[in-house]
């Protein structure tokens, strides 16, 4: 036994010596223990940010999300010969046939890899951090700050005349600290979806909506004034149109576009005015923390509510439920408060570690801004295209698109700065409490303190 232990020790020393010699010839440093092997057990991206944009999305996409079972192992990575694109199942299916033109023009083979939607952001980040990962990933614009922080995405030096062909907000959404990092293909936002059998008229204001809703509830036609996601933990994305109605919001806007992430304005007089409206909507029962992702769309489809505030992801279920619907912008408040929603932009990101940087850039800069791809992607997820020409082409075929575009008007892209991650939680919980009856001014002040200390502690 003792001799065996000795032999193993010898073996170990020999191994160490051998690798040490090998190590010298290669000048590369062994990476630090923390950066090395960084596949830390990071779960899915139920993060605060995705609560905002994609939580509803995920429920809407429903069971399909799991269809990516084939990607149980590590998905294919950029290998220096072909172009590898990662996308969720819905978008992977859409982009695959759209790459044929590119392959025919350039002779570059394109591999599209399905990654489960709730894991895409985390896997993209981790894989690129390991020096692997795809050349291109299709994802939401509000990931951007985090991706830049960890050097996951490469800048996209798109030609100015091409950038001008996009809806301006979509370009703003993919700009971080003055640099462009992705090419957008769709713009989505919340809107008022109305059951036209129950409520044939467009309400002129939130007050009128509440009045009509209350009348319907009293008459026994419906059970809810309005269906809108909030939940016990609140939802800053869903409540933003009300909170920002009087010019307030989360971060002050910068003159050159984007947000100033260094200070939050959750307790500014303008934001508080919006929060008062939130409290009022809670008081009259239009909003409730008992309405969450699990019941908002089902309630609307069951006819329990004539009005619902939701996004394009709800439409498939509504159509399946056989509801006659119409889409309109969220009504403004009667005293002039303008309810502008957050915009979510879907984009093509280029990996910072791509082994085919020019090929990837050629695809996103020269092929993604074409009507072929923009319209093709629309067919898959029904979000209005970000390329103006494509949006116009689609509008002539699908009247919903025009309505979605109208609803998005005046909206600001969700902040893509990493500081936003410190806001989703506290602001979300504040909206839940205010709707539940907490004093708006006090509660927003508490949220402001918490956000400020999180930002200061960076």
């Amino acid at each position: 036994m003792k001799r065996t232990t000795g032999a193993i020790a010898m073996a170990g020393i020999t191994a160490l010596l051998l690798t040490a010699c090998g190590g010298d010839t290669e000048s590369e440093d062994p990476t630090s223990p923390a950066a090395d092997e960084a596949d830390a057990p990071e779960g899915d991206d139920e993060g605060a940010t995705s609560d905002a944009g994609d939580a509803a999305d995920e429920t809407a996409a429903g069971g399909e999300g799991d269809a990516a079972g084939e990607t149980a192992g590590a998905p294919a990575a950029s290998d220096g010969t072909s172009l590898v694109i990662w996308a969720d199942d819905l978008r992977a299916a859409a982009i695959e046939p759209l790459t044929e033109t590119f392959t025919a023009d350039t002779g570059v083979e394109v591999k599209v890899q399905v990654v489960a939607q709730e894991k895409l952001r985390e896997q993209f980040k981790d894989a690129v951090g390991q020096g692997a990962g795809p050349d291109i990933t299709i994802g939401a614009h509000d990931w951007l700050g985090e991706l830049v922080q960890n050097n996951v995405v490469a800048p996209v030096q798109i030609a100015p005349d091409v950038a001008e062909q996009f809806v301006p907000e979509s370009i703003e959404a993919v700009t971080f600290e003055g640099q462009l990092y992705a090419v957008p293909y769709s713009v989505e936002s919340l809107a008022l979806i109305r059951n036209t059998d129950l409520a044939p008229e467009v309400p002129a204001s939130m007050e009128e909506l509440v009045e009509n809703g209350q009348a319907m509830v009293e008459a026994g036609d419906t059970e809810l004034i309005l269906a809108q996601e909030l939940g016990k933990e609140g939802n800053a994305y869903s409540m933003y149109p009300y909170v920002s109605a009087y010019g307030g919001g989360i971060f002050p806007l910068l003159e050159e576009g984007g947000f100033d992430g260094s200070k939050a304005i959750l307790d500014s007089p303008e934001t508080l005015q919006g929060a008062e409206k939130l409290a009022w909507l809670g008081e009259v029962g239009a909003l409730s923390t008992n309405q969450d992702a699990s019941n908002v769309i089902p309630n609307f489809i069951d006819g329990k509510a004539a009005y619902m505030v939701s996004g394009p992801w709800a439409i498939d279920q509504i159509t399946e439920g056989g509801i006659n619907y119409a889409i309109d912008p969220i009504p403004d408040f009667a005293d002039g408060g303008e309810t502008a929603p957050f915009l979510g932009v879907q984009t093509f990101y280029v990996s910072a570690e791509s082994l085919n940087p020019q090929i990837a850039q050629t695809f996103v800069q020269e092929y993604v801004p074409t009507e072929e791809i923009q319209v093709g992607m629309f067919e898959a997820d029904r979000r209005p295209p970000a390329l103006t020409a494509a949006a116009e082409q689609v509008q002539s075929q699908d009247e919903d698109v025009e309505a979605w575009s109208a609803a998005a008007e005046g909206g600001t892209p969700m902040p893509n700065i990493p500081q936003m991650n410190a806001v989703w939680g506290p602001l979300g919980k504040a909206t839940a409490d205010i709707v539940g009856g907490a004093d708006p001014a006090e509660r927003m002040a508490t949220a402001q303190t918490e956000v400020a200390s999180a930002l200061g502690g960076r």
Partner: protein
Amino acid sequence: MSQAPVGQPVATPPWVLAVKWLLIALTLAACTYLAWLAVEGGSWLIVTVVAFLAMSVLVVYSTRRGITMKYLLPGLILLALFQVWPIAYTVATAFTNYGDGHSLSKEEAIEAIQAQSVRPAPDSARYGMSVAIPEGEEIATAELSFLLTRPAQEGATGEHVVDGQELFVGTLEGLEPLPVEGVTLRGNGTIGAAPGYRVLTLVEANERAQDVSAFAVPVDGDLGIKAATGTQAFVGRATTTYNPDADTMTTLEGTVYVARDGNFVPQDGQGPALPTGWTENVGLDNFSSIFTDSTLRNGFVKIFVWNLVFPLLSVGSTFLLGMLLALLFNDPRLRGKGIYRSLLILPYALPIFVTAIVWAAMFNQDFGMINEVTGLNIDWLGDPWAARAAVLITNLWLGFPYMFLICTGALQSIPTDVREAASVDGAGPFRTLWSVVMPLLLVAVGPLLVASFAFNFNNFGLIYLLTGGGPFDATNSQVGNTDLLITFAYRLALESGTPNIGLASAVSIIIFLLVGALSYVGFRQSKALEEVN
């Protein structure tokens, strides 16, 4: 099948030897392959470990020595890989600031910041670009040049202009006009062929992709013409540059950023840090912040108390219900026990990921079944005490079948003569239960109760899916009223404003120590139970 005489070495049949050497060879081949992959990835630590493994396998199994080691080695290797390594890794991470914005090494961060700062010069021209090499040379080694075109400006001379495009050749020396003779243009306005050059296709140029990325044709000042795509180039410059002597970053506007706490922060303290930071050692900062940061400390104490109460009440309530049902269904006079028992085990058989979500929906104040059926109007998931009750109720439903199962098993193993002896001695049913059955039962299930405690101590799935740790107090959105330490650590690591894996590692080490200590005490106690025998 021959019986070997005791004490004499057995002659190993040749085929066994052959299989043995084949297996050894296979293991070595697999190790070589792994090592080769690791060498390609540049991880010398992994190469060392793999080489060590290969040598150990060879030494232990190829020789006749060390019989014990032959049995122990596989277990030891697995122990090291799946137990020791993750723990060591977590401990190492707990002393760093690893997390979002601090995931790179400093060198990588410096490079990334400079690469991200490359901006096109305002109002500069955009060029059509073809990557070219001198004719007749190898792609892998040849000197690159960019053949560039741009719409002709006024004053451009005719010999460099074709089809309205002005032609240039860009090298590392600078930008030169290109004579039009022999030049053909492609449909997109880029040069398709030029005398003396071999124009590379997108795929050919990709062999030199990193060189193309780094290539910049110098034009006035620090501006350079760089590839934007495979066919387009732009004029730009890095707007932030690193000064290695002072370890600072300087922007074009002259703002100086100094390295501090894993980020480049403005020297004058005004404005935000540069977004990309790096991982560095922070010593005991993560541990001290758990105990000094008031939010974390208060949260930690509050969560810890609930983290003790929750598993205690859970184990107590599930055990009580499970045991009572087991006693009931153990009665020989009851008919159809098989069916009842199967039905009772159902909650245990359903995956928690389904049941917890269903229970969350049932607890909904307005739309949930529980308020509807009972006629109550309790805000189950919004009120701290109601939420705690909801968690315990759900866990009772989820957990009693397990207790029922193990109690049934233990009860059936208690010999009937013990009970008979008790009744002969004149003990009533309760006296028998309390003084005879219970002690014997606890001997059997005691360790399982401790295990159940440890499991519920870390019952992440239930809390995460049912309440998400909430409801939260107004002043603190990090610490929920039903949070366990493990859900708290998860939120810190992945869901908080600044996902901080280093801090979360520190929290999990503390959880590890706590669970270890509690389990130790628990097992000591359950050992005391065994002394009944």
